[in-house]
């Protein structure tokens, strides 16, 4: 009989509901009926503006500007002729355009419908003034994202677009409404939660002419938080200009703390296109260009074989594992024999006897075949992973990928086969299954520049007034003599007249670096350069990657030189 308690309790609740329905539907019928007939409640949203993005010198990069839209509430149009005249005089709309606008507004007669988007301020003011005695017309103000430097730095910022109806289902609890903008890539997406403002608004009661009679409630909008970046927009512009029409990426970082000073990926896009109106054909073009892939950030979202820049890892591994010392020499005749197969050096006539510094300076493949074999695939795999390959660097940008740091187990799992000795040789010179992102190569370069520490690359320094805690660099435990030999090799590559990276040589500041020319199955070789300066106390490191860009020692080395020059002008080195 204990369920009697439950039955009584539930009966009371049901009685309450029925009473509530009776009260609302029968007793208060005429009140609600009138409310519904008049549709007298309006919500005027006031958008909370999105946070501003500043560079490291607090120069604004991405802001929100005011934009004005002309809105028609069809039901409230009084004098149609007069309104049409006004639209044609001020906005220069043709008769046909005005007819279309009225028709569009007529489809949702009770709601305001935007008929002209983003109109100039003076015209907006003129319409606003006229709207006092022309009912049915309103000017709505909203904040529109403005990427001041257009395509410069676009892959850092990313872009925005409207939330879709499907997304709204899961996003509405976070305060998103129809037509709200949401970050789709880059910082706009990664820091969406901080950047987004909180919408406010007023709820008003209007009379049958649509004029406000009473404010029912008001909620203040809140602005999103500002982001302060590690980027220097001056260096960013130079980096973008140097990259020019090449497909590829350039990234500049402070090796001491992982602060990214510039990050370029080409081809680029203008993020403004995604917030402006009447640009859908341009958007489609950007989003469907599968050849240039302008929307993809090639510095972090695509992987490539590293080629000879990877020799930095192979050399470090051989020195660490004591497979060689600074004066161990191998003879390069231009070819290395493994059984009946010949593995070639890039220089057919051979380099002669090479030690590790010369091997790096000349990028001699045969030297690295020898030490690669001495190391074996397992040790190569260990060091590849030690230098951060095979997983994302966790940079604070979206869509980063980790690439592949292969090994025996990896091959069994992904290629269903055993590891061959010849593959170890390819591994040692950065070819084969190995695939990396430019940002990973940059981080490896920084290890050489900062005495053996793996830093966490990042773009944002401060959110609002909160300084972000720097992730501590990871000490890889490399010995001093290992670092010294590899660094010397990189020094010689740039500063020796026969070095592969001699085009990077700068007067007044000593640069060290390594080039890479990576074969790939899709056509011309990929071209790499990575390096740092000043040699004695590195403050800047750079990676240049050109997709199908030919030889690393040619254009990438020259682009890097330009970056170091500008960094010097700006006082970084």
């Amino acid at each position, binding site marked *: 009989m*204990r*369920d009697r*308690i*439950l*039955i009584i309790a*539930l009966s009371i*609740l*049901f009685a*309450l*509901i*029925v009473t*509530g*329905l*009776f009260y*609302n*539907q*029968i007793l*208060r*019928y005429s*009140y*609600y*009926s009138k*409310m*519904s*007939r008049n*549709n007298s*409640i309006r*919500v005027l*949203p006031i958008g909370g503006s999105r946070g501003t993005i500043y560079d490291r010198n607090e120069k604004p990069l991405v802001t929100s500007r005011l934009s004005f839209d002309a809105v028609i509430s069809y039901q409230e149009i009084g004098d149609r002729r007069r309104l049409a005249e006004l639209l044609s005089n001020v906005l220069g709309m043709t008769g046909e355009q005005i007819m279309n606008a009225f028709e569009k507004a007529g489809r*949702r007669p*009770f*709601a305001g419908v935007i008929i002209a988007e983003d109109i100039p301020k003076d015209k907006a003011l003129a319409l606003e003034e006229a709207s006092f005695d022309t009912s049915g017309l309103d000017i709505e103000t909203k904040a529109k994202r403005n990427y001041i430097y257009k395509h410069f730095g676009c892959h850092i910022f990313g872009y925005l677009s409207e939330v879709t109806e499907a997304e709204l289902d*899961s*996003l*509405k*609890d*976070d*305060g998103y409404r129809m037509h709200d903008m949401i970050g789709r890539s880059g910082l706009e997406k990664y820091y*969406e*939660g901080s950047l987004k403002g909180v*919408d*406010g*608004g*007023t*709820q008003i009661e209007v009379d049958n002419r649509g004029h406000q009679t009473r404010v*029912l*409630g*008001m*909620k203040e909008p809140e602005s999103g938080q500002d982001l302060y970046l590690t980027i220097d927009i001056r260096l960013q512009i130079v980096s973008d200009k140097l990259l020019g029409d090449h497909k590829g990426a350039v990234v500049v970082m402070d090796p001491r703390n992982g602060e990214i000073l510039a990050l370029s990926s080409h081809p680029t896009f203008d993020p403004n296109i995604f917030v402006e109106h009447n640009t859908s054909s341009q958007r489609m073009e950007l989003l469907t260009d599968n050849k240039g892939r302008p929307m993809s950030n090639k510095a972090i979202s695509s992987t490539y074989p590293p080629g000879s820049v990877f020799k930095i890892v192979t050399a470090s591994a051989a020195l660490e594992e004591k497979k060689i010392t600074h004066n161990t020499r191998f003879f390069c005749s231009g070819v290395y024999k493994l059984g009946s197969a010949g593995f070639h050096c890039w220089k057919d006539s051979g380099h002669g006897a090479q030690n590790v510094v010369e091997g790096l300076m000349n990028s001699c493949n045969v030297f690295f075949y020898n030490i690669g074999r001495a190391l074996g695939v397992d040790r190569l795999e260990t060091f590849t992973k030690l230098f951060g390959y095979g997983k994302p660097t966790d940079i604070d940008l979206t869509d980063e990928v980790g690439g592949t740091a292969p090994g025996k187990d990896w091959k069994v799992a992904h290629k269903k086969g055993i590891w061959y000795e010849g593959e170890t040789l390819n591994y040692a010179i950065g070819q084969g299954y190995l695939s990396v992102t430019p940002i990973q190569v940059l981080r490896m370069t920084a290890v050489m520049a900062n005495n053996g520490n793996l830093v966490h690359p990042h773009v944002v320094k401060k959110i609002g007034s909160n300084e972000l805690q720097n992730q501590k660099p990871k000490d890889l435990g490399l010995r001093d003599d290992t670092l010294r030999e590899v660094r010397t090799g990189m020094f010689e590559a740039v500063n020796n007249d026969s070095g592969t990276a001699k085009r990077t040589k700068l007067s007044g500041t000593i640069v060290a670096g390594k080039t890479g020319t990576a074969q790939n199955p899709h056509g011309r070789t990929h071209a790499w350069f990575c390096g740092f300066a000043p040699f004695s106390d590195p403050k800047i490191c750079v990676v240049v990657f050109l997709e199908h860009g030919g030889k690393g020692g040619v254009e990438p080395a020259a682009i890097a030189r330009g970056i170091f020059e500008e960094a010097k002008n700006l006082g970084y080195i």
Partner: protein
Amino acid sequence: MMIDRRMYKDFDVMLATMALVIFILGLLTIWSSTQAKGLPFAQSYVLKQLMWFGVGMIFFIIVIKVSYHKFLDMAYIIYAVNVLLLVFVLIMGHARLGAQRWFSIAGFAFQPSEFMKISLILALSAYVGQKKGSMESLENLIVPTALLVIPFVLVLLQPDLGTALLLVPIFFAILLVGGAKLKYLTRMILLGIAFMPVFWHLLRGYQKQRLMVFINPNVDPLGAGYTIIQSKIAIGSGGLIGKGWLNGTQNQLNFIPERHTDFIFSVIGEEWGFLGAIVLVLLYLLIIYRAFDIGNLTSDRYGKCMATGIAVLLSLQVVINIGMTIGLMPVVGIPLPLVSYGGSSLLATIIAIGLLLNIGMRRSTF
């Protein structure tokens, strides 16, 4: 194991018919509330709901054919799997931007918290039934409490305040009919009330706001407050006989957000008036009456606990859902059983009804 003739005799045709009638009323209302979207039938919410109903029927047949004792035997496994799914959703939700209560299987959103209600009823009934007459001791309340707290916290973190809160009365109802001491139960309720401030702390900003809005709708005239005001206008303006199917102005003019899901009752109130609303409430009451009846007729302790749990679950969902559309309850996101658009809720309710019928059909077997 198999169904014999006597079982068919005890198949509660009335209960099944009432449920089907409510579901059809629901389809008509979903059609009305989504027609402003102008979707073709092939993409319509009605079709999706019908597809879910089809899936539901498969589950229904399974649930009817197998004795509910089999489900009780597996109750803890079902419970554990459901808890794992909740954890999974939680982890996935964290990986995304914000809240996520569902994951999708072949394009259908699947919401484990809806099924948790049933899993909890099963697990509690299995425990209480097995303890026979010894539920009076305090020790035997420990396991049931743990069974409640785990999903409660997980669902609350999702965050789905309404569903989490709904688990609590189910717990008390089953313990009550299961023979726990009233003294202990009242103390637990008091303890729960004492923990309210901690609980408040766990809520997200917008959840707090919704509760505040319940106390004073003008706190948030744009968010939850707006929905309540518009929903009340819709229902109130429906009057005695309503504005007619497809003719609700509040509905058709997009004034009410979520009107095909949580706020679907405002469309019923507007288009079918007080009479329509009362008919719907009566249909629910008949189902709930049958549920208690089945619980009383069965001589099986397990079955009684389950039937009571399901009766309380259905009652409270109806009361809370309708209550929130007329401002009598806070807006907590509880769907109207069999009516609101949404596959997981529909599926869970069909399973619950199947279990009820199952208990009814096997009431004299031991």
